[in-house]
């Protein structure tokens, strides 16, 4: 296998960035090959140039990103220049590309079946054969009721189903090379596991090679034959999977791997004084007008207990009700029934000034740092706003804000700038600073690191931990990422469909999950450790 000629070989590829960017090249000096039947993982953080490589292979680089150097060969022949018409006969037939957001990559007003048939049509498959082949393919990607899916519109599919349809389309004509650009990032862990399994199976069945683009070392560990690590437009390390994972050479690779492996030290329960108690909480969302009323029972009887200074991780897949529960505790949403007690006081139905006074004690960090700060507000003013609302003198509040900026790892000068001048990681630090400016006793972080790159994630998680030990707040940390949960939590709460399925000390739940769903979650999660144990076994 190692001696077979490469399906794809990239030599010395350089793509320029338009002027005024933070670097001159999108990618520089890329050398990469994919051999028949092989899965090559291109791993790197956002902005590292992975997608540029993928798009250059399929000839879809925009005019603004010209190829300035290098050669791309596919099955021994040189690929046409970017955006050439000649690509029409390669794309879909010889090389396929699938994107992260499957639902968005399907035309919303056409039935999925028609979109599959279109691929066959443009590549010259006879009209009569199309329906059968499309249906077969839908079955091959493991969709439950292919005929129904065939007739469905994209918006009627779940994310996982849509990704299966997209994969069906990509592999319909058995291309030699499949480029998958973060195909599972938008999916839940369990669905992700299924899709990865599916890709592996089809790859084998159809004899395709895969160029898999991801930021997640867990996935890499599970599927890669070879790994190319990208940083700032260059490949810093390229080698066999085991070599890279076990003996990374480049410091950057090491750092990434370390970030992916972190887990929290176990802390014993120190106080018996609960900061937060939730009893049998229910929440139903009602939407629609007079005639199209709809309701979703988002939270069903959740109870929990959190002690001062400790961190409770709430894990679960999307739609499990974890964020809704958080919004109830924050009193951003009014619960239908149940009780929320903060330091023994029932806060379930506080209103007006008493509610506003309570807000000082319970603070909030959200998922998307970009949208979490008013774009028209200077950073310092955003951080100082909380204390000012709670009647602190402006000068004092701003001095405190400047302090917090430094505490969270930014310079005090940054306070004069506007949000758009910061990166995601920096903005999340600012959000944390803003939350802490009120010296809360409880901090609720809702997917607070999900939008960030792995190395940044690690930094922010470290920040949370150090701030927690400094200020002593209790924390509810909501995440879908088990690795993140493991790295930060003392206690854990697993949610599914609005209900708590399992809770307890983090170490206990991770090591000996009791509930089948927890077990399924843990086994679905791609993990570097699990690969090694699997191989060792």
């Amino acid at each position, binding site marked *: 296998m190692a001696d077979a000629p490469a399906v794809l070989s990239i030599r010395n590829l350089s793509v320029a960035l338009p002027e005024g960017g933070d670097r001159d090249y999108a990618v520089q000096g890329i050398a990469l090959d994919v051999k028949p039947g092989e899965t090559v993982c291109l791993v790197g953080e956002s902005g590292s140039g992975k997608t540029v490589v993928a798009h250059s292979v399929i000839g879809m680089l925009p005019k603004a990103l010209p190829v300035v150097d290098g050669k791309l060969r596919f099955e021994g022949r040189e690929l046409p220049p970017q955006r050439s018409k000649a690509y029409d006969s390669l794309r879909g037939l010889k090389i396929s590309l699938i994107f992260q957001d499957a639902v968005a990559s399907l035309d*919303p007003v056409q039935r999925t079946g028609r979109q599959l048939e279109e691929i066959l049509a443009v590549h010259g498959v006879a009209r009569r054969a199309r329906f059968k082949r499309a249906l077969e393919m839908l079955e091959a990607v493991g969709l439950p009721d292919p005929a129904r899916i065939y007739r469905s519109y994209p918006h009627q599919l779940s994310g996982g189903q849509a990704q299966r349809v997209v994969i069906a389309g990509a592999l319909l004509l058995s291309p030699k090379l499949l480029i998958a650009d973060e195909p599972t990032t938008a999916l839940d862990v369990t669905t992700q596991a299924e899709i990865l399994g599916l890709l592996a199976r089809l790859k084998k069945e159809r004899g395709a090679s895969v160029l898999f683009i991801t930021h997640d070392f867990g996935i890499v560990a599970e599927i890669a034959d070879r790994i190319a690590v990208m940083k700032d437009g260059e490949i810093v390390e390229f080698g066999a999977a085991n070599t890279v994972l076990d003996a990374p050479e480049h410091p950057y690779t090491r750092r990434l791997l370390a970030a992916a492996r972190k887990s929290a030290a176990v802390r014993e329960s120190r106080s018996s004084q609960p900061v937060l108690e939730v009893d049998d909480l229910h929440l139903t969302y009602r939407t629609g007008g007079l005639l199209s009323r709809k309701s979703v029972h988002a939270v069903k009887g959740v109870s929990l207990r959190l002690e001062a200074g400790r961190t409770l991780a709430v894990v679960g897949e999307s739609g499990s009700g974890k964020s809704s529960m958080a919004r109830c505790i924050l009193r951003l949403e009014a619960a239908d029934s149940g009780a929320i007690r903060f330091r023994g006081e029932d806060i379930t139905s506080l209103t007006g000034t008493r509610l506003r006074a309570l807000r000082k004690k319970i603070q909030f960090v959200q998922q998307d740092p970009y949208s979490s700060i008013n774009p028209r507000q200077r950073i310092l003013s955003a951080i100082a706003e909380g204390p000012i609302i709670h009647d602190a003198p402006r000068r004092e509040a701003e001095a405190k804000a400047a302090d917090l900026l430094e505490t969270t790892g930014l310079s005090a000068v940054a306070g004069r700038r506007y949000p758009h001048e910061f990166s995601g990681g920096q903005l999340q630090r600012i959000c944390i600073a803003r939350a802490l400016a009120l010296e809360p006793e409880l901090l609720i972080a809702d997917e607070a690191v999900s939008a960030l790159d792995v190395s940044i994630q690690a930094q922010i998680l470290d920040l949370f931990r150090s701030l927690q030990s400094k200020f002593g707040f209790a924390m509810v940390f909501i995440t879908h990422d088990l690795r993140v949960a493991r790295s930060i939590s003392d206690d854990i709460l697993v949610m599914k469909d609005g209900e708590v399925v399992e809770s307890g000390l983090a170490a206990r739940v991770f090591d000996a999950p009791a509930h089948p769903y927890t077990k399924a979650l843990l086994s679905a999660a791609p993990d570097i450790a699990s690969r090694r144990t699997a191989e060792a076994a």
Partner: protein
Amino acid sequence: MTAYILAKLFRAAATLLIAVSMVFVFIRFSGDPAAALAPPDAPQEVIDQYAEAMGLNKPLWQQYASYLAGLARGEFGYSIHTGRPALELFLERLPSTLRLGSAALLIALAAGIPLGSFAAINRGTRIDRFAMAFSVFAFAMPNFLFGLCVILGGALIFQVYFGGTDASVLPAALTLGLAAMGSFARFARSSLLETINAPFMRAAEARGVPYMRRLAFHAAPNAAIPLVTLIGLSLGALIAGSVVTEQVFGWPGVGQLLVRSVATRDIATVQFIVLAVACTMVLVNLLVDLLYLVIDPRIRSR
């Protein structure tokens, strides 16, 4: 889907009822409604008869109820000068207004959408800039000035009369449709641009779908969806514009009837035309909503 249709129907009915009620309120509270509806130089006795017939001595809610009942029975009042039912006068003019309006809409669509699409496809080029300059021109040109220029130009240069209904509908329809053409072009451009840059367009490209096919089979149907709303919205502008255009071209349509009825203070006719316009607008908007069902599967399965 049923809920969607029901909701839209309910909303249309409510809108119509409010519009009708507003007309009622307006007439009742603008001085003496009987004097307004009676002939302008009618003696007091006649006005009193009108007041009696309209039930002005009854409590307001009874008047309102009988007004609604009258509308439901199709009693829309009589033109004071000709003594003919307002409905009849309206219906007589309707065909020529429809002819003008539909031709204008057609011109606006047939010229505006290709223009906008062409601009979108050639975004940033000279073609784009020219198309957009033209669309702004079409929008900024005062309707009647353009119409008068067209008419005088036709007569003095080509010896052809562009007014009235006997001649070709084209000049009048062009005048009426010009502004709508401009907005269609701009809207088509932005709508198509948004679609062209949508992820599914890149995905289709990655599947090997050729450029023209992507445009025709994927971009166009998706870009058309928001355009449907614009057609509904532009109807109001077309109705308003037709008042002026009919006046300029001596076009014997509803717009001219309205202007003349206002000049002669023929309130019954004016009132009916206002109701008819509101009704048309509501119906068209309802149709637009229902059309969404046909063209947008996302709404169908709601």
